[in-house]
């Protein structure tokens, strides 16, 4: 399929004798926000960790643009255009916004042996980026992360994922511990990311947040993919909850 960005095929993952994932197939299309839902222990995190290089599958294949790829570690994932934003947003709170945005891929200037960071370029690019993800407040790029609110931190994390032309942004519980307004902001950043050509996998416990932003919902239960094409516009939160728990809640 031409529209396909990532395809995971027949993914199995065993932890000792525990089968965390069994024969999972999962695709993300270009320019799409996919909501990945499931109860605790359903295997969402395991699946995402395989895609972001934190775990290796016991068996199964991953394709990007129809080409088979091997993702052995975080750097492989990043090289393949996959960025993951974890729950705690994984920023270094002591460092500035600009230093965080470029961490691991700092631009250099001058002779190579000087190993000199181009801090002016970093600050300038950082200013533009944080405005692009919707931080309207005037925050200098040299501000340390520790001085930012939870929502602003998520925005910086999203900006970081957007900046390196990553094609797929994985958001693991991005709205946890956020206030109403900040959550609203994050959902806007996610939409902004899609509108500028990125695909997203959105994982959240709060189904309402997922409903507000995603194009397609997939549901996992006990290591299996139980629904992979739910259109949030054609269903209700209650129905999706039934799929997640595997029970007919309405009948209870």
């Amino acid at each position, binding site marked *: 399929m031409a529209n396909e960005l990532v395809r995971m095929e027949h993914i199995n993952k065993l932890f000792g004798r525990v089968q965390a994932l069994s024969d999972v197939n999962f695709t993300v299309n270009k320019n799409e926000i996919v909501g990945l839902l499931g109860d605790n222990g359903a295997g969402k995190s395991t699946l995402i960790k395989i895609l972001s290089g934190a775990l290796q599958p016991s068996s199964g294949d991953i394709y990007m643009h129809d080409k088979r790829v091997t993702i052995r570690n*975080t*750097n492989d994932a*990043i090289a393949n255009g996959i960025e*993951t934003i*974890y729950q*705690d947003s*994984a*920023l*270094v*709170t*002591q*460092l500035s916004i600009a*230093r965080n945005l*470029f*961490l*691991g*891929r*700092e631009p*250099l200037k001058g002779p190579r042996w*000087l*190993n*000199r*960071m181009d*801090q002016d370029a970093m600050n300038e690019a950082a200013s533009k980026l944080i405005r692009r993800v919707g931080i309207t407040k*005037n925050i*200098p790029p040299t501000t*340390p992360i*520790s*001085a930012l609110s939870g929502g602003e931190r998520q925005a910086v994390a999203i900006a970081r994922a957007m900046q390196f032309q990553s094609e797929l942004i994985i958001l693991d519980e991005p709205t946890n511990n956020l206030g109403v307004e900040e959550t609203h902001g994050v959902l806007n950043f996610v939409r902004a990311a899609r509108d500028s050509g990125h695909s997203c996998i959105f994982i959240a416990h709060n189904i309402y947040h997922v409903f507000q932003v995603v194009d397609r919902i997939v549901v996992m239960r006990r290591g299996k993919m139980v629904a992979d094409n739910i259109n949030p516009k054609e269903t209700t939160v209650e129905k999706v909850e039934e799929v997640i728990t595997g029970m007919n809640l309405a009948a209870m």
Partner: protein
Amino acid sequence: MEQRSSFLQRLVARAEFGPFVLLMVEIIVFTLINQAFLSPGNIGNLLAFTPELGIIALAMTMLMTAGEFDLSVGSVFGLMPVIMWTLYNTGATSLEIGFLIAIAVAAFIGFANGWFVTKLKIPSFLVTLGMLLVVRGTALYITDGFPQARWSSDSPLLKILVGEITVGQVRFYASVIWFILFAAILGYILTQSKLGNWILASGGNAVSARARGVRVSSTKVGLFILTSVLAAFAGIVSSIRVSTANPNSGTGYELEVIAMVVIGGTALNGGRGTIVGTVIGILILRLMRNGIVLIGVPGLAYNIFIGAIILGMMALHSWLERRHNAGT
């Protein structure tokens, strides 16, 4: 519109500001009480030993910024001159080769520290405490506990490391030049280079740094090696200056060095570090030791002042940090 705080506000908010004020107060008070404090003779005195401890403190600043510290520096300071002079005195090698061997052994000790900390995930406190005992024990065993006399040598190495330099009326050793050189290089690395960003990130949040592709373990191992090598360098410089390699020298330096680093504003648990602050911290402690003797306070009371300075500076840094985090 860019929000600009005044130059003065930004100056005061810097971690180095508090220590700098303290240093100025120290100099003024000591000079007022005893004019000899700023005499060329006394400045020369200060410049003799200060760079030796200072060079270790510079390296320790880098290591602590990356979230680790090294308690074995004092014992490395003691053992490496013993190795160098023993090799030379027994005729086994030339002094230059002995120097290189001692530095290589120090590098290996640093590597071992780093390996235990990063691969086996043992806290650096325990690893380097163990290493302290191993290294000190080795120095005592090799020498039977006796100082190694420094045999005469006309090696150019002696001049390069500890040659005497006179500027005006002040006489000092080449070790001052080395100290300034190391301070400039390490200060540049920490604030300007990509490696510096990795060091700060490794100490600030190792997990997320690793997730960004930062090679946290290699960075830390490298800094353990740097710390050990510079401690050896300082020890050798010291042994040349005092003409003896005492297996017990350097005892207790690890804590004095760590005190210098934290007084300067580097965080004990990593993520924040300043070479400028460390240079100020070094001067605060060394001037204090020198000054309280000059103004007639019993030398044995020195530690009371050092302890009080550490507590006061920590209180100041924590207050600044809270104010900083509050976003003001």
